[in-house]
């Protein structure tokens, strides 16, 4: 008990998080390609079924995938308690998310109640065991520094609410459930999903990894103690407002969310500017792009209700593109470029007991020049796509092809690392 989280034997085998990490870029590729023929729909209006289907290829197939894999790997180290039954949880999470994202996207797009019902089962299987296992780890956490624990625990709650609301929405669309209140339910699902789950989790991870990767000062203690609670309070206000129908509460909630996006983006950019380590690598570039995206996005929650109705659709799609591609996919890519080669080195060294000089180092496992090439492609693709909702549908195609190519590069780079690991005799399980 007392050595919980300390020993190598308790770290999951390389193959466990890896299956999530290698699947995610494939979903990004799929989303980019599927968005080409459907551009006339999703660029015009976020409520088209094409837009919702594409959104979930990203939120479940890419983000959910990487985040589950990363948490199964990181929780034992960061909060100091192992994740129970992690092999089963990983198997179910991976299969459930992959099958669920595919089925949900096709079910929505085809308008098939049967596919939607199967998707709901798959997604429940993909999320509920994971959430239960993460709950055990987070509840028993014995870390001496609570700053990461607060956003992580709140993100857990965000994921639970998002999944519950999502299953309900899908049930309504499949015709199983009463559509009463679907407007409010959708608003809350989106807010809890994007900020309650994705943003809070990135904040919790950032408190640990930003100072670690670049040797920056730690996040200011006052900021780190309160920022996650502010996001949570904003979401609580929004939830209350949507039940009570009070628009002034909602206004306050959206204002706080906007401030949270700007605050986190600016504080992180400032820490990175003050880093001790001068090296600029692909991970730093990806994180900067991600943080800049948050800062740019910050006025949107406030601005959106003030826009004329005919502009709201395009503004929402643009906001979604900036959040999902500019922020979330960037941050996740940056993390993968550290986690995957580090784990390759770590597992190979520990398995073979090889002397450090006789196995590849992290940069040989995954050359930074390759990762940077990916960053450039990703950057150009995002810049191209952000104005797409305001332009004719055909405009989006080249940007989407670039995005698919960028996703392929990510996959190729990660796979190259794993191949080298195997060639040196590393075992995945």
């Amino acid at each position, binding site marked *: 008990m007392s*050595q919980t989280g300390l020993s190598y034997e308790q770290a999951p085998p390389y193959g466990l998080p890896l299956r999530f990490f290698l699947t995610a870029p494939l979903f990004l590729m799929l989303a980019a390609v599927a968005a080409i023929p459907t551009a006339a729909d999703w660029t015009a209006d976020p409520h088209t079924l094409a837009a919702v289907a594409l959104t979930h290829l990203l939120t479940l197939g890419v983000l959910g995938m990487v985040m589950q894999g990363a948490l199964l790997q990181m929780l034992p180290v960061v909060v100091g308690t192992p994740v129970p039954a992690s092999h089963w949880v990983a198997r179910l999470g991976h299969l459930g998310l992959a099958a669920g994202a595919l089925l949900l996207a096709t079910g929505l797009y085809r308008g098939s109640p049967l596919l939607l019902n199967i998707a709901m089962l798959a997604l429940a299987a993909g999320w509920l065991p994971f959430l239960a296992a993460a709950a055990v780890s987070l509840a028993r956490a014995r870390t001496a520094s609570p700053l990461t624990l607060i956003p992580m625990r709140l993100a857990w709650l965000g994921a639970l609410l998002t999944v519950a609301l999502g299953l309900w929405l899908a049930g309504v669309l499949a015709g199983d459930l009463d559509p009463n209140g679907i407007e409010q339910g959708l608003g809350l699902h989106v807010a809890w999903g994007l900020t309650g789950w994705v943003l809070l989790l990135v904040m919790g991870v950032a408190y640990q990894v930003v100072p670690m990767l670049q040797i920056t000062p730690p996040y200011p203690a006052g900021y780190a103690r309160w920022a996650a609670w502010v996001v949570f309070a904003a979401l609580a206000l929004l939830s209350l407002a949507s039940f009570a129908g009070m628009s002034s509460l909602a206004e306050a909630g959206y204002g706080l969310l906007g401030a949270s996006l700007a605050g986190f983006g600016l504080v992180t950019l400032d820490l990175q500017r003050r880093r*001790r380590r*001068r090296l600029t690598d692909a991970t730093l570039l990806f994180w900067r792009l991600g943080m800049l995206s948050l800062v740019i996005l910050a006025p949107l929650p406030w601005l959106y209700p003030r826009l004329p109705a005919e502009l709201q659709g395009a503004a929402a799609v643009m906001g979604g593109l900036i959040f999902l591609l500019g922020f979330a996919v960037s941050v996740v890519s940056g993390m993968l470029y550290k986690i995957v080669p580090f784990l390759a080195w770590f597992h190979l060294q520990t398995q073979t007991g090889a002397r450090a000089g006789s196995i590849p*180092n*992290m940069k040989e496992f995954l050359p930074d020049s390759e990762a940077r090439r990916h960053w450039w492609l990703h950057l150009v693709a995002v810049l191209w796509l952000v104005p797409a909702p305001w332009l004719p549908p055909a405009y989006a195609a080249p940007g989407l092809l670039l995005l698919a190519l960028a996703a392929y590069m990510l996959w190729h780079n990660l796979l190259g690392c794993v191949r080298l690991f195997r060639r040196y005799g590393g075992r995945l399980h």
Partner: protein
Amino acid sequence: MTPITRLLSNDHDHCDQLFAAAENAVQARDWAHAEAAFAAFSQALARHFAAEEETLFPAFEARSGMSGGPTFVMRSEHLQMRELVAQMAAAVERRDDAGFLGASETLLMLMRQHNLKEEQILYPMTDRILAGEADLVEALRETLQAD
């Protein structure tokens, strides 16, 4: 009071700063400076390891009766880190900046997560079971500050 946690966590920060200075010099291919900066880093790290392996861990093992447990894991991670430091030293000698930076990247990741585990789990544990042993803290301090 958590004197052990505080002392050794501060020393981790100190080693991080020296690490960054050495890496920055190598990256700039300022080899004259890099040699001195790297020597300062590797000496500070060696003193930190010595303080733990020769003073802290034995005291912890004697008091807790656990010698195959957490301290065993920490010692074996020290071994991995020493290997990487040796690789970096050879790269400085060869003036091989790419080789140095590949090893230093690996070392940084390993070192920071090792430190995290010590700061969040092992040090607080030693502060609890070795509370009030002022001599021990003094001995640690002396090792860290030796030339």
